[in-house]
């Protein structure tokens, strides 16, 4: 978003120093407002979680379980941007063929498929092409894995 990659945004929101983001927020009203809203939401959620835990006396393990379920639900319901979804598929591929090969295969597929754009139909085409390219190097099993994961992701426009 606005020339800043998602990882940097996430790191900044987690409290890490990100001079690029801080500089951007000084002049970008839209992003500054979004960050404010996210911080407020985070504060409310933390306060609410504290209140619930204190009231119900929930154990740490149970809390962890609830958090997992919550994150899972968020992941199911959310709509991924093409960049996020591509990053997820690349990460899935890395343990099998290495980060360098995963990057090369993904970029090659993006070059082949980008003309279609990344609407849902374009995403399906991209996943199909990526799966085929992965198959040619890592085999059908890995290609099938990429296809299953890719088609399970709900991807919206960037």
């Amino acid at each position, binding site marked *: 978003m606005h020339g800043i990659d998602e990882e940097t945004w996430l790191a900044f929101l987690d409290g890490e120093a990100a001079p690029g983001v801080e500089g951007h927020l000084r002049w970008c009203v839209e992003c500054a407002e979004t960050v404010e809203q996210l911080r407020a939401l985070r504060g409310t959620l933390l306060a609410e979680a504290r209140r619930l835990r204190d009231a119900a006396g929930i154990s740490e393990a149970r809390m962890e379980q609830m958090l997992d379920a919550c994150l*899972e639900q968020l992941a*199911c319901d959310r709509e991924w941007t093409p960049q996020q979804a591509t990053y997820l598929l690349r990460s899935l591929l*890395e343990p099998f*063929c290495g980060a*360098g090969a995963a990057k090369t295969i993904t970029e090659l597929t993006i070059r082949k498929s980008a003309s279609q754009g990344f609407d849902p139909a374009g995403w399906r085409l991209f996943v199909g092409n990526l799966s085929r390219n992965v198959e040619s190097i890592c085999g*059908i*099993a890995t290609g099938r894995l990429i296809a299953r994961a890719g088609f399970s992701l709900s991807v919206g426009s960037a």
Partner: protein
Amino acid sequence: MLHRPEAMNRALWVFCALAAISGGMGGFWLRQPNVAPWMAPFYTTRNLVPAAAYALALFFCFTVKADYPADSRMRFAWSLMQASCAFAVFRYLIDWIAVRWKDSIDPDLISLRQIPIAVTLILLTGSLVAMWTSFTAIGLGTRFRKLDLLGFAATAACVPFVFSLWEGMADSRSSYAFIRYVQSASPILLAAPALVALALHRISHEMGEGTLTYSLRLLAVSLVLRLASLWIGSSAVGREPYYSALTLALNSASAWIFVQAIFKRWCLTVQASNLAERYRRDPNHEIAELSRSLR
């Protein structure tokens, strides 16, 4: 054990160590038979060790080959690899027969073993070249560094050296002229797969850490070790008992490192199949897990 790849991995390394030790003892006995006569069986049975290794590699090759689309270059590469392993088993069994009954078999008949040896190496080189072209098709392995060129030069330099010693090789006095030619070409046939394996090693560095990467690196190590063992064995020092032991130890270990390389590639198929099955059963849970692991 095949359902527990970790245990299989450990077992293969143990076999590799045992193969190196038994090969070493066999090599020592070859030059010093009177010092330790009890080591004789290690020499006479030494060819059964790589035969077992290549039989196991052949088994893994079936699964790996089936994991590639019918018209792909990788499938062709693994078909050649499979054929190469099959010929290697055959070749080592013949070698074992030749050593075990060397006094009762016609040496010219034994010298025919050069045919499966050459076929094994040609198929292996073809397989590695097909693999390399699969990687270059996606843009990997097209650029080499100075260190790679040095590796290529060192490997190629072994050829004229070993070639100069071919008259001392086992079948160089065969009465079949074509066997003598095949034998004289053996340094080139051994160096060729090692050279291509070095190119695959460069690709493994471009790929980054992953299961396929380990497979390629082990393949390169195995083939370079095999060439090194031939180089040491052919040189004058190869007649010294300890160097002779080192030669056969490296040779025996290289076969099991080769199995490790194929096994790693087999593991990739198994791991991907298991994970794909998990994605089929519960894709949302798996995606949540993946996105959480990236946070």
